[in-house]
């Protein structure tokens, strides 16, 4: 390993040169685009602040989903491709409760209790889906060759997605709005809506809770031990299967909560809603260094802000029409670039390549 490393430094391969030229080109486009946009002064500072706040809101949702990816990767060294469906299943199911509350007027009478119940149902459903996927699709394949669980995960993802399509239908469901969350706070240039505050505060609280759980409790310690070395942890008397299920429960609960927050921000749910946020949250997890819990939080925020500011900042100045359409392309490009140039992520924690 060491030998090849040094050899690569000495001998620059043409493919590496190609990659670095592409990288340099992208940096060039980003820098020139940003300078062009800012020098044109087309957008006021207020517009940028709005975009930034929206980016943080979106980013905290991504962080919550990313935690599920990162915890499972940390322990099983596999991408839980079906996590985006775990995220979708919760709010999609809780929609019916929210709708019923809204019709009976309960939602606006006591929004706090109603929201708590909606969150509880969403998180419960997501946890159930996550645990079932783990039990049926992943556990029997724990010692299979490396591609096998990934393929199962893809299959499980599509199965769950289309199962919910069959159960609840293909229509886009409009999440009821809550009167109490309609206003906004204005602080000079800052304009923050109540929903954005709710999202950011709730996400921060849950992440703090998770951090404390992982760092301070016995189970959290066992989780870290299993992530470090599964077989040694088993020898120390840790029930690895239980810890893995706990991980899926935690990831599912966070995803279910993130789903309700997402539904509150975008006011709609449908069976395909998990895919794009799922991929982006995975990007966030990779950005922060997969397997690294604070990294996922940071990566999510970073991605949210880049996605929110990026189209205007990088592309508008270059005279590209309708740059907002390319926001997903920016997120995907970021994913590709991170995996190519810095697969260890921002907070770089080296994870061993899983061998067959």
């Amino acid at each position: 390993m060491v030998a090849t490393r040094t050899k690569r430094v000495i001998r620059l391969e043409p493919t590496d040169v190609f990659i670095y030229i592409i990288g340099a080109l992208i940096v060039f486009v980003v820098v020139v685009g940003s300078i062009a946009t800012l020098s044109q002064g087309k957008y006021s500072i207020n517009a940028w602040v709005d975009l930034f706040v929206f980016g943080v809101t979106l980013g905290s949702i991504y962080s919550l989903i990313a935690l599920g990816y990162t915890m499972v990767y940390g322990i099983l060294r596999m991408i839980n491709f079906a996590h985006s469906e775990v995220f979708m299943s919760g709010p999609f199911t809780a929609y019916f409760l929210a709708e019923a509350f809204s019709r009976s007027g309960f939602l606006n009478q006591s929004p706090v209790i109603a929201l708590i119940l909606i969150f509880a149902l969403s998180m419960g459903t997501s946890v159930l889906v996550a645990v079932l996927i783990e039990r049926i699709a992943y556990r029997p394949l724990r010692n299979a060759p490396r591609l096998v669980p990934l393929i199962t995960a893809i299959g499980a993802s599509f199965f769950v997605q289309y199962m919910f399509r069959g159960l609840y239908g293909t229509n886009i469901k409009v999440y009821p709005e809550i009167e109490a969350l309609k206003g906004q706070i204005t602080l000079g240039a800052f304009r923050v809506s109540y929903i954005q505050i709710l999202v950011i505060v709730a996400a921060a609280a849950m992440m703090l809770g998770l951090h404390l759980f992982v760092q301070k409790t016995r189970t959290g310690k066992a989780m870290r031990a299993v992530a470090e070395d599964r077989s040694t942890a088993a020898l120390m008397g840790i029930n690895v299967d239980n810890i893995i299920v706990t991980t899926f429960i935690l990831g599912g609960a966070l995803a279910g909560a993130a789903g309700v927050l997402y539904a509150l921000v975008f006011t709609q749910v449908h069976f395909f809603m998990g895919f794009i946020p799922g991929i982006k949250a995975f990007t966030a997890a990779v950005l922060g260094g997969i397997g690294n819990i604070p990294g996922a939080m940071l990566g999510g925020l970073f991605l949210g802000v880049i996605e929110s500011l990026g189209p205007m900042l990088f592309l508008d100045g270059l005279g590209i029409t309708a740059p907002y359409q390319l926001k997903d392309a920016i997120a995907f490009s970021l994913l590709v670039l991170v995996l190519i140039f810095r697969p260890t992520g921002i907070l770089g924690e080296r994870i061993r390549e899983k061998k067959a």
Partner: protein
Amino acid sequence: MTTPTTSLAQPTTTLATAPSAWRDALRIGLIGGVCAVLVALIGMIEAFSNRNIIAGVITLGTLLIIGSAFLSGYFATRSASDSPRAAEVIGRGALAGLMTSLFLTLLALFVNAVPTIRSMFINASPALVQLLTLGQGMPAGNLLLLVVGTMMGALAGLLQLVPPVFHRSLIIGVVITILIGMMQDLLRVTFQNWSALRPVSNFFFTSNGLAPAGAATIFALAIVFNVVWSQRGDRVRAGIRSLPPAQRRALNLGLVIFGGIILLALPWVVGLFFSEVLVNVGLFVLMALGLNIVVGFAGLLDLGYVAFYAIGAYMIGLLTSTSKEIVFAGGWSFWAALPFAIAVAILAGAILGIPVLKIRGDYLAIVTLGFGEIIRLLAQSDFLKPVLGGSRGVELIPKPAIGPFEFAGPQELYYLILAGCVIAVFVSLRLKDSRQGRAWMAMREDEDVAQTMGINLVNTKLLAFMIGASLAGIAGAIFASKLAIIYPHSFNLLISILVLAVVIIGGMGSIPGVILGALVLVGLPELLREFSDYRLLLYGAALVLMMLVRPEGLWPEEARQRELHEAEEEVSLSEKLADDEELAREGATG
């Protein structure tokens, strides 16, 4: 996992293990019940109830209801075939069947009592209740379902007790009858084209479902054939093997020519509708053979394979279109544009391949997925609209033609695709056992070891990506000229997933497997309209089940099968070693 080991460890205490077997039956019946309720709520029972299998006797929907009870009984008694008492096995099957039908009955009662549940579960309709009571009204139908479910479970238990030859033959007979019943309206249309076959068709088929006598005949024929084959099959195979080489070669050649004639005549025999299906299957065969090189031979999991399909389609679209809205619309002929489409697809394979050279396994899957989505988003954007047509796509793509012969309809396009598939099969076959194929296989097993053995990973990987891309490019080119108009949203992730499913379910690395996979996964859902809504659901389930039960695929490649079984043997060996160690330790302490 625990039950077989305990029963192995204590073979004498059958009485002690018997309650656990009953508990298992109960558990399996419960799982089967939950699955059956899910299937009902997803809407499959109702959707499939329109398809008659046997006219006036049974529909596919009813078959799902009673089949679920049968399957529960079957799995509940599968491991218990060595049990000494027949009544016990049948009883266990009946218990599992009863459990499963109880769940369906409870569902019917619940939906009947709470009709508003339909605002949540859109398929919990009165029609479903009627199906779940077997059309007999509320209390009588519920009882009937329970009785039928119990009987089905008992029947499954009984099936475990008959000799294996008949056991297998019966199952095959039922499956073939159901399959022919499902296909019946298509087969009937084909038969009606030939006036000589019309009486045969009238015997087997009615206008809606198999005729009862026809169904019985098919069932009996399938059983007789299977029983005879299981007794004589080995001798026939041995006879063929013992033929002198010259004759064997002649036999092979004859088979190839025969197959070729059938393939050439196929679109005109089966008619327009089937030809359309064949064209779609052919496109996926072509793509799947390409992806098979990337995933199956070289072991590089590519989830963005649709990108090359899109590139091939867009190149043909742009170069041949006569549309005014596209700046660079070339107005070329298909044949002039095709080499460019393939070349650009290959180039794209290399360009997208280079950055991912050092990325392995699951990361590779995600990066390629990202690439595929980026290409689609770019094609869809207003930014590139003058060049690529934005979300309105590229219109006015001409059909390919050789002189006066135009590949206009599916029956003509079929030949274009057949030619593409034949080339792809030839390339795959030649590459598979070549030096290059071995290099891919070595790389698939272990990149580091392959590199140590002197394989140039850069060239090997890029070649796999490029050849795979070229085949997808051809498929895309044919797709574009087939539809005459292409939209960016035709090239979404689902195509990549579908092609991947074809390769994996068919058997990674296996060429006949991939073709079979495309026939099953692309052909069947197109033939059965009811299935099209549940296509991706069933693919997802099939991918999971395949990985759990038969990871080598339907028609496995030899090397891969050997490998997977070796791994199993190793696992069982190491388990055994661990067991032995444990025993030794116990012996030492005790």
